[in-house]
């Protein structure tokens, strides 16, 4: 457990930023709607941010190691399930289950 006050501060900072992002735009609606640039960013940001976060999750993949096969196989399961059924929960649970099984047995550290 990291320092308790720091761990709480991390949550409070997140909460303040998140709430600010959720509440303040209601006070500034008109300029937001008018801005062509904001509209452009708003339609493209979500996909890009998710791709970046996915890359961030996989940033420390040891490419020369057999253990890498567990996350790669789980990733394939997740993508495959999602393209097949389009059910977010099923894809997440299926991929995670595949990873837990592989990482705990075949590719156990």
């Amino acid at each position: 457990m990291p320092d308790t006050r720091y761990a709480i501060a991390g949550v409070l900072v997140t909460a303040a930023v998140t709430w600010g992002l959720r509440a303040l735009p209601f006070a500034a609606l008109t300029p937001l709607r008018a801005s062509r640039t904001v509209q452009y960013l708003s339609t493209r940001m979500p996909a890009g941010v998710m791709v970046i976060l996915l890359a961030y999750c996989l940033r420390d993949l040891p490419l020369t190691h057999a253990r890498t096969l567990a996350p790669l196989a789980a990733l394939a399961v997740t993508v495959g399930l999602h393209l097949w059924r389009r059910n977010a929960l099923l894809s997440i649970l299926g991929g995670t289950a595949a990873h837990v099984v592989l990482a705990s047995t075949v590719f156990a550290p």
Partner: protein
Amino acid sequence: MNISPAVAEDRPRPAPAPPSVSPSVSPSVSPSVSPSAGPSEARAAFHDSAGAGLGFVPLGLAFGALATQSGLDWWWAGLSATLAFGGSFEFLLIGMVTTAAPLAAIALSAFMVNVRHVFYALSFPLHRITGRLGKTYATFALCDEAYALTTGKQARSHSGRRILWLQLFLHLYWAGSAVAGALLGSLIPDGVTGLDFALTAMFTVLALDAVRDLRGDLPTPALALLSALAARLLFPGQMLLAAFALFTAALLARHLTTGRKPTHA
């Protein structure tokens, strides 16, 4: 370890059904906030929330279990789920807090991951919610699913109360399952690892759906991927921040160079 009550009381209390309904509700709304409307509004909201709840509970359990497996106390998962209430960033927050990331880095990452909420203000029906407390809570608990469930075609006639009840249910699912996952997480045997892949799987799904929503605009995910790879190679210590900055700059540059064409999204 007890959470300072001052911290908890600073926050807006969930108050979906304040006993005093403002008498000044507009005529078009008043039928749905008649005194007898309470329980049925809550029941309708419970139905609205069921589908999203099925997704919240397993993810919340995974979030709580991951928090305690990472060395955080069970109450931290509950605190984060209650106050931050933004699922995807909370998973990242576990990693940032356990590696003692600077608070400024947490703030900036939270901003980048959650900045999408800015655009929810364009269509979330806040005007239907009466009372200051209600409006405060509605913005506080405006998660992706709450936005999706209150702005769709089927939700056009939903009253403010029904929306608040829905948000409270989603909030409770998330916070409750996070605490449950944190408490149950210690029961997971030591040999079982790899639960953290839930985060990767979640972003995989979100990325696939978001890219599909772009309807063939492949340069955007390509720019994002390039930004991430460049950030990984050039700024391995601050990959997330560098990647977001590069990606935003790339999008702006592309917007400027493609001229005044109307957006096609």
